[in-house]
């Protein structure tokens, strides 16, 4: 039997339109816009100014704290200016605008296609270089990876779980990476195991990717400690807490991190980036982005430099379809709708999904009929109908008691609601308000 998580879950149409499309290298854009905040934590500090000449892979913004990440120039050329651009969240954020001239790489970066298998770096060096390479969680959360590799004192990591689930409909980047760069991904996994000092790693892959399961199983059968765990196709299988439970049967307690149950989770895309950083000395300046949608002429997976405008990706996929209503950065369940296609690709951009007009607008909201479907699909065991009602009425203390902060924002409740109620919208509001209250309470206590 396939493993899965224990509570709730849904199965939206998978629509993996680009699953058979090989990763293509997207041509360089003439101008890239590199935001200095592409990760969770403190924004990086820009090290360059107008007129500076930069090389591909050169650090252009420096990590400004433990939870922060370096940013490297994705192209070579001249810094035109620093200006505020709209990013995928819709906010204006400072970005370094670079005019691309040629593609001259920083020295010491190995761009050869040969796979470097031998691992010579030690634990500390791996973590240090992951931090230097600006690697963040590429599954979409963009949490700086080196932080996850440094467990707090007193907590011991027992095993590494690699997220190859890709449970978001439409997205296929991780799938292609496992098929085309499987060996590199596995070297990345070994590097992570070494950094965490663990003997076991489980790669969780949803069963709708039988080719990837087979390929990675074959590649990993001679590597000690690495195994592949096929998982049931059930959203949100790739949620960190859900994946841990599915793989090892342990539930991360409310408000705690995976390390509490002895696990650390990294994405396959992150593993690949770590391989490149350690073995090839290549910082994180590009990633695989799926461009897809039912009306898109040529859905595909593109190896894209950070800072590339989304519009260039759309052009590569055959241009913006006539009937476009919505452009989403990420997948349909958790992705962010873009207000403009000028938004630059960032480290967390896993896909660009173009929704036709008729699927872009929400249906009219009706009264709650108390069908309890939101309760039964919630993979955190919450009562979305109640959390929405409490948030609407601003009853924050009850919302806190009802564990609004446990919500992982997977969107299953809004997806299933027969009355098309904006459950998650209100739950997000509740999370942010209750979060503020909890933080101010902790500050007062100190």
């Amino acid at each position: 039997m396939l493993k899965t998580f224990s509570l709730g879950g849904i199965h939206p149409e998978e629509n993996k339109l680009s699953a058979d499309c090989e990763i293509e290298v997207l041509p360089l854009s003439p101008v890239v816009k590199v935001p200095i905040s592409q990760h969770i934590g403190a924004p990086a500090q820009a090290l360059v100014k107008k007129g500076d000449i930069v090389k591909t892979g050169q650090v252009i913004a420096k990590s400004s704290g433990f939870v922060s990440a370096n940013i490297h120039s994705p192209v070579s050329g001249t810094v035109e200016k620093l200006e505020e651009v709209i990013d995928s969240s819709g906010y204006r954020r400072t970005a370094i605008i670079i005019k691309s001239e040629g593609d001259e790489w920083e020295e010491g970066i190995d761009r050869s296609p040969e796979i470097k298998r031998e691992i010579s770096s030690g634990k500390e060096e791996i973590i240090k270089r992951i931090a230097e390479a600006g690697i963040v969680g590429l599954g979409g959360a963009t949490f700086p990876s080196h932080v996850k590799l440094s467990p707090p004192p007193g907590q011991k990591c027992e095993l590494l779980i690699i997220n190859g689930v890709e449970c978001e409909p439409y997205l296929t980047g991780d799938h292609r990476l496992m098929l085309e760069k499987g060996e590199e991904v596995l070297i990345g996994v070994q590097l992570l195991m070494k950094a965490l000092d663990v003997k076991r790693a489980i790669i969780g892959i949803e069963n709708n990717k039988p080719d990837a399961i087979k390929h990675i199983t074959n590649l990993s059968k001679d590597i000690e400690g690495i195994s592949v765990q096929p998982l049931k196709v059930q959203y949100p299988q790739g949620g960190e807490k859900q994946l841990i439970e599915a793989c090892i049967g342990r539930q991360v307690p409310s408000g705690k991190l995976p390390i509490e149950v002895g696990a650390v989770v990294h994405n396959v895309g992150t593993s690949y980036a770590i391989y490149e950083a350690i073995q090839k000395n290549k910082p994180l300046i590009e990633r695989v982005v799926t461009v897809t949608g039912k009306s898109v002429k040529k859905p595909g997976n593109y190896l894209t430099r950070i800072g590339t405008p989304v519009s260039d990706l759309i052009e590569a996929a055959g241009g913006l379809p006539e009937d476009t209503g919505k452009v989403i950065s990420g997948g349909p369940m958790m992705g962010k709708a873009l207000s403009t296609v000028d938004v630059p690709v960032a480290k967390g951009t896993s896909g660009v999904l173009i929704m036709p007009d008729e699927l872009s607008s929400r249906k009219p909201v009706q009264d709650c009929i108390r069908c309890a479907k939101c309760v039964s699909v919630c993979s955190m065991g919450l009562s979305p109908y109640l959390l929405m009602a409490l948030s609407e009425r601003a009853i924050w203390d009850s919302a806190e008691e009802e564990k609004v902060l446990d919500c992982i924002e997977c969107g299953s409740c809004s997806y299933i609601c027969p009355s098309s109620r904006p459950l998650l919208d209100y739950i997000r509001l509740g999370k942010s308000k209750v979060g503020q209250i909890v933080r101010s309470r902790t500050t007062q206590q100190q």
Partner: protein
Amino acid sequence: MEKLIVSPSPHVHSGDSVKKNMYGVIIALLPALAASFWFFGLGALIVTLTSIAACLLFEHLIQVYLFKRPSTISDGSAIVTGLLLAMNLPSNLPLGIIIIGAAVAIGIGKMSFGGLGQNPFNPALVGRVFLLISFPAQMTSWPTPIISRTAYLDATTGATPLSVVKGGLISGTPLSELMAQIPSYKDMLIGTMGGSLGEVAAIALLLGLAYLLIKKIITWHIPVSVVGSVIILAGIMHLADPEVYPSPTFHVLSGGLLLGAFFMATDYSSSPMANKGMLTYGVGIGVLTVLIRTFGSYPEGVSFAILIMNSFTPLINKYIKPKRFGEKPAIQKAYKN
């Protein structure tokens, strides 16, 4: 494309709707409806049409003229209430009484609380119990199946298995003799017995349940806990004294238990939200049903049991929460593989 549409995630929807669920319930009731036409003929048709038409009319009038809001009759919920009310009535009930029942079901049971999703009690049951108390004679005269097909008010009536057993036990007749006077279990399964329109045909109701479950309109928790708790409690009592307490099979196949467990107790807004809550509620209905049937003055207790448990739903929702992820401290066991 002029401008892009921006809204928070999720950007896809299951396509489920209130209408789909309501019309799904109606489809699930079709086998039982067909069975009622087969057994009670003209009377069943008149009662069903009157009840549905009256429920639609009252909902429309109240919504449009009292609430001054757009009519909601197209969402299918008034049809469901009308159909369920009809399913709970005898096929020889005079038109006037049916209309009063519909007025109470929709007016008091549903709209007085604000309409769909707001009602604390199952509206159809509110209507039915109102009629049972107000018109006890008409509401307990049950046409005999098949022979009354062309009759309406003048249908030949007879006792239901439950009333035969209840009456017999009160007069001191042993159960083994009474069981000879009622239809066989096979007839009760098919529906050849006296009773309300929708309750007689167990097989038709089971088909309806299968549809409700396959279409994910309801979950198994309420039907299974109601029927299961009746089987267990009636089974224990039957084992204790088989001459006084009827068998679980009798309890399950007679009266409105299956109709109640599958279609009435599962009413969305009057039943609990969490699975554990649904199980508690279902067990409450099952236990109360057996207790009312055995010790109460009415032969049948499903309607009362459901209404009583409806009143506990807010309490159940408050105290019985869904099983939360990561609620219990993680068991730190060594990883084996």
